[in-house]
């Protein structure tokens, strides 16, 4: 995560929680619309009604679980920032793993370990993709390239023009 692309720490929790809810609700709406459309009995009005019912029942649930994940994730993230005194990808990976573990806590230790591994691997992949993207973008795009073909031009600037891409969380 980039420091300049995200909210400062205590407010990040609220931001992530709301963003995750919106993301889950919209994404769940899209997927549940398709699913409800396909599973309903034939006839256009039945299909539309099935799709609406599926959206109304499932999309808020999915948004809620996304929000729980996002809120807990950034809470642990902020805690780690406070404890370790620095902000790096390891914070995200650790908090992803811990979030997975905590949310699976009622299913026993084996499920906790599995869920923690899943969260950690997922966040590690996302962080790695972000780092790769930033490196690629800063080597690819050069200043002044909107007027001519991007070719061997002046030296690339140190900061990435696509750093904003990483505020997806």
């Amino acid at each position, binding site marked *: 995560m980039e420091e300049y692309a995200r909210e400062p720490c205590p407010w990040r929790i609220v931001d992530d929680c709301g963003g995750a809810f919106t993301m889950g609700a919209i994404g769940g709406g899209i997927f549940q619309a398709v699913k409800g459309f396909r599973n309903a009995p034939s006839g256009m009005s039945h299909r539309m009604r099935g799709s609406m019912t599926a959206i109304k029942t499932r999309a808020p649930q999915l948004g809620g679980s996304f929000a729980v994940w996002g809120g807990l994730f950034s809470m642990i993230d902020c805690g780690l920032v406070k404890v370790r005194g620095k902000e790096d990808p390891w914070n995200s990976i650790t908090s992803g793993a811990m979030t997975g573990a905590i949310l699976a806590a009622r299913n026993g230790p084996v499920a906790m370990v599995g869920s923690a591994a899943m969260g950690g691997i997922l966040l590690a992949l996302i962080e790695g993709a*972000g780092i790769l993207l930033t490196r690629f973008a800063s080597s690819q795009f050069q200043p002044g390239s909107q007027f001519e073909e991007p070719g061997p031009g002046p030296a690339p600037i140190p900061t990435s023009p*696509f750093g904003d891409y990483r505020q*997806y969380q």
Partner: protein
Amino acid sequence: MPVAVGPYGQTQPSCFDRVKMGFMMGFAVGMAAGAMFGTFSCLRIGMRGRELMGGVGKTMMQSGGTFGTFMAIGMGIRC
């Protein structure tokens, strides 16, 4: 082409560019995650050989699509 000019004189990515980039990134992450988790789950239910390749590929495409969609939405609601 985007018209907004950033602080260093290069163009800022437009909203659609960012959504597209988010989708591509989510797709890549989802493909990688689907390769790992899909291999485990397909091996667990006893797929081997050519069947395993098909199963893993299917899981990769599915999770890539899901991840990409969610990441694109996540980019879209923030710009």
